């Protein structure tokens, strides 16, 4: 476990010292700022529009970090050959994958927490509550980022970063359209939509299960048990992806 932690801390430090992260954070802060301006366009819904826009900015930043940095997480190590001096140490390939993904997950959590603090201040200014529901929305965003990181890691074991990003963005989009797809597939005359829906339901994660923004935007009830099972669903997806990625990585020549 110590080796995993050492690798995680190194990954965390590596990304935090990278300018890309700061560009992304600035972009998200800018979007949160824009959300205030956008809110003023509506007379009755100012708070809701600002909240929606602000939460979407955090959501987008977490997804971008998970997919774009995740696609290079192992690939860059192999390409730059930094992996050579790591894997000759007493470290298994599973520990390597765990360490790298833990480091990036910690970084995504730090960024979400930082942006959430800024958004919390905006909420405070708009008179919106910063409570358990607000916290749960953030947990949902993190869980989604975790799933996308896992999926990205699997893709990164078999192809190049550009394609990995495309595939992972595909999973992100399908993951949010899954409920709509199921809705249309159940209608009469759905045709090919039915088998597609079956494949998507069984082989891709349903990311709408952790999209809990409505808790804040429309003050929906908490339903903690549903939230807990959805979190379990995401964590299972994450670990399943890590297992698949490790299995592929175990047979790979990295020299």
């Amino acid at each position: 476990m110590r080796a995993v932690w050492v690798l995680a801390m190194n990954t965390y430090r590596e990304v935090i010292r990278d300018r890309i992260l700061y560009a992304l954070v600035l972009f998200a802060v800018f979007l949160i700022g824009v959300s205030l301006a956008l809110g003023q366009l509506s007379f009755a819904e100012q708070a809701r529009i600002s909240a929606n826009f602000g939460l979407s900015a955090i959501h987008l930043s977490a997804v971008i970090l998970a997919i774009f940095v995740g696609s290079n997480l192992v690939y860059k190590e192999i390409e730059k050959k930094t992996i050579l001096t790591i894997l000759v140490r007493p470290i298994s390939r599973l520990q390597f994958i765990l360490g790298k993904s833990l480091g990036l997950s910690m970084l995504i959590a730090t960024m979400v927490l930082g942006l959430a603090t800024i958004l919390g201040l905006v909420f405070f200014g708009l008179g919106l509550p910063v409570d358990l529901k607000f916290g749960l929305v953030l947990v949902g965003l993190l869980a989604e980022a975790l799933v996308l990181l896992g999926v990205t890691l699997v893709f990164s074991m078999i192809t190049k970063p550009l394609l990995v990003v495309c595939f992972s963005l595909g999973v992100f989009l399908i993951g949010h359209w899954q409920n709509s797809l199921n809705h249309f597939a159940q209608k009469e005359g759905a045709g090919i939509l039915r088998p597609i829906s079956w494949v998507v339901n069984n082989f891709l994660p349903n990311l709408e299960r952790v999209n809990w923004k409505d808790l804040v935007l429309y003050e929906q009830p908490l339903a903690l048990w549903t939230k807990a099972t959805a979190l379990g669903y995401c964590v299972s997806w994450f670990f399943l992806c890590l297992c698949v990625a490790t299995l592929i990585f175990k047979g790979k020549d990295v020299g």
Partner: protein
Amino acid sequence: MSLLEVKNLKKSYARGLLGRRVEVLKGLNFKVPAGTITGFLGANGAGKTTSMRCILGLDFPDSGDIFMFGAPPNVESKRRIGFLPERPYFYEHLTGTEFLQFYANLTRVWKKPELNARIVELLRRVDLHFAKDRMLRTYSKGMLQKIGLAQALIHEPELVILDEPMSGLDPDGRLALAEIILETAKKGTAVFFTSHLLYDTERLCQRLVVMRDGLSIYEGTTDALLEQGGMKIEILFKANGLAQTKVISSQEQLQIELGELLRQGATVIEVRRTRLSLEEIFVNVALRGVKASGELK
């Protein structure tokens, strides 16, 4: 006792669109005894780097056996080896000190004062103490090579494997690195390294393994190989106002050449008999396929 033993190692890679398999290692055998500096020589493409990658578990051999410290490679044996890859690719975002801390902590648990003392000692030894707080992205190639060697030695391994440790270094850097290698070996660590710089190899190595086309064609002491290389005769003469040298290999040829030179009116300045250098023997053995007899051959 052998710290490293390779038996009948084979490795092939798929190349091209059709995935045609190219055999790089064709049944490699050699040993690295404890307490020695062993040079691993071969022309480009002979399979040296592939062998090292298989030995270190970075690539998976098709067949054959590798024994480290008398057993197949495992977590414990990995704790006892150090490795410096061919080109120093390291985490540029780390400072010299952070870099060594990172690799030390990956290998074993340290008490903080013990680790700090070890890092200071190593940084002094590789002459990088002045750059300990600078990020690696600001290091020159020679500095990266030195810090790379330091990471390979940080946990005081029993066997250090170095892939082209001197490539790209200026004479000063090569000399410094050679001194560190000698000092490391004096402390009882076995060193196994590849190099194209045969002058340094000849000076440093007690033993040699020479590869050609995926097989070891010589394994034995450096002295034994140098003796097998035989002697050469150099004639230094002056003709048409220019000093020139002629190299010949036999006594009979010497008489003929001398007679010819004198007939042409050249002035013979000196006739020298010297042993062939490792470089010349290497060209004969590894590139031209001249047979050399070693311990296993």
